[in-house]
């Protein structure tokens, strides 16, 4: 449960950072086009990143949590940079699907 939750949170973080980045003057995910939405998304991404690290810290040491988060962010960011231009709809869909998945996993983590 801890692993899944951290991985999904990192995926979501990478998705939001990637989506709010600009390419040729436009946001990569059109949903973040007005700049205030991009700011909110980045804030949510930062919270998700901290949550992923905090979640890992609950089962392992601080250095291990920092290493895991760094490795996770590198992987997810590479995944987004390479796959989104090839499968844009799938990656956007996966990002949206992250929200309920995170909520369900967080709830399961709390009750278990």
């Amino acid at each position, binding site marked *: 449960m801890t*692993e899944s939750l*951290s*991985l999904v949170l990192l995926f979501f973080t990478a998705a939001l950072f*990637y989506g709010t*980045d600009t*390419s040729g003057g436009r946001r*990569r995910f059109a949903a973040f086009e007005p700049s205030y939405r991009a700011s909110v998304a980045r804030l949510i991404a930062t919270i998700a990143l901290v949550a992923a690290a905090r979640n*890992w810290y609950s089962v*392992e*040491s601080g*250095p*291990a949590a920092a*290493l*895991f988060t*760094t*490795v*996770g962010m*590198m*992987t997810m*960011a*590479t*995944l*987004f*940079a*390479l796959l989104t*231009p*090839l499968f844009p709809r799938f990656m956007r869909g996966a990002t949206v699907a992250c929200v309920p998945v995170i909520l369900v996993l967080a709830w399961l983590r709390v009750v278990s």
Partner: protein
Amino acid sequence: MRLKLSAFAFKRFWDVHAWSGVVTSLVVYFMFVLGAVVLFYEPLTIWEEPLKQKPMPVGISLQAPLDLAKTLPDEFYYYLPKDGRGPHKIAFYLPDTTSWRMWWLDLEQQRLIPQRELAAAYVYDLHYLWHEVTGYALQYGAGVLVFGFLLAIVTGVLIHLKDLIPQLNQFRPERSRRVVWSDLHKVTGVLGLPFQLVYALTGTLMALAPLLFQISVGPVFGGDELSAVKTAGALIDDPPPRNYGQPAQPLTLDVLTAKALEREPRLMPESFVFRGFRRELGTVDVRGPVAGVPFGDGVVRVRAVDGVVELVQTPDNESAVGKAARWIHGLHTVEYGGLAARLLLFCLAVSGCLAILTGNWVWLERRHARAPSRENLFLARLTAGVGSSAVFSLAMMFMVSRLMPLDWAPRTRVEELTLVIGFAGCVAFALLTRDSTRVWWTVLGTAGAMVLTLPLAALHHSQAGLIGSGHGEPHVVGVEIGFLCIGSALVGAALSIRARARSRTARDSMPADLSPRPVS
């Protein structure tokens, strides 16, 4: 951050990046591919050896399995089963050689079973380019080459410093081949930068550690090898040889372990090193992780005849070099994060492989555009050969290991030969084939097909896998799911390369005015 280098510095760094990259690329690529597999060393050893798939015997003393071995050398290693699975084992170097031999201690049938499966161990050793035939020579060469790769990384960062951030996620698959290779090289290089930097640095230090140790004993420690070993910590395993005195009866291992734990209760014993076995000054190293410390392996050395503690080496009392060594070792061998971290690092290793190969392709595209030459043609074919055969030879070795009878004595040698022949054969095929693209899809497709059938071939030795009739063992099932994913990815990549090659051939054969122009 927009830092711009002078034209002179840019040109020099560019040359160093390109040349160090192209010289080191293929060996480092091979090490990366093996490293990606080695991440799953432990599950692979469980998958390949049915003895490790059984639960360990319960309620037995530490000494009982050891007593099965009637004759033991002066120095040997004794390992406890991991995670409650498999039998105990002993291992040692054959006297005055670097040949490592291992035996399982089968308590049920009161016998010693020689190690009969070495596929995962070969991959592990070859990751450092170590082999008992070549000794440390190739390993040191690998250390130097990885240092060259480190140079390529640093100069790569310097030449792209002015536009590092924009290149973080700029991948344009619709553009010309040269732009696609360049984008792929930059995305995988920049996003995986911390990973590649850490692994190149720690890998260099680990590969060169024995050499650095030897050359520092004289000038730094005044020739005192024992003090040098204490300072070096996790990078050096063995203390120097010494005289262990006359024959004497040691205490049992259970008593010795209890004495070690009295001194360091946080130690969780995993293995033991006996030196000067059954001699009056003989010692036993009780080794294992120390609870609550990151990368915190510890050793308590006790004298075998009376249990006097000679050495306690834990993260609390180690030297600064020892602390650095512990982090270097812990970072490189992923002593954190469990399976999730290993899966992520596997993806990063694959992305590192892409960064290396695309670096070569960028070099080739640039050079070929300027002036086609035989050297470039050779490099293109060699890149295709090494790139595809690294995967193919591993698939072939695992397949052969599943098809041979487990108790057939020469099987470990045959596994080794299969790896070498598979690799050399593929490289020869690539060098003799005009079309490198054809090499890629043929070899990757064949490797993928082999990997996909591994779970089926594994039924020959064990029913604990994905499609076996027995009770599924989680590690075995996990490894076989991994094989299915990797096999599918390889076959998918082969089909995609073939489809693109065919569409390019069709486009090239069109009259010029009908042919779609690539955007560059």
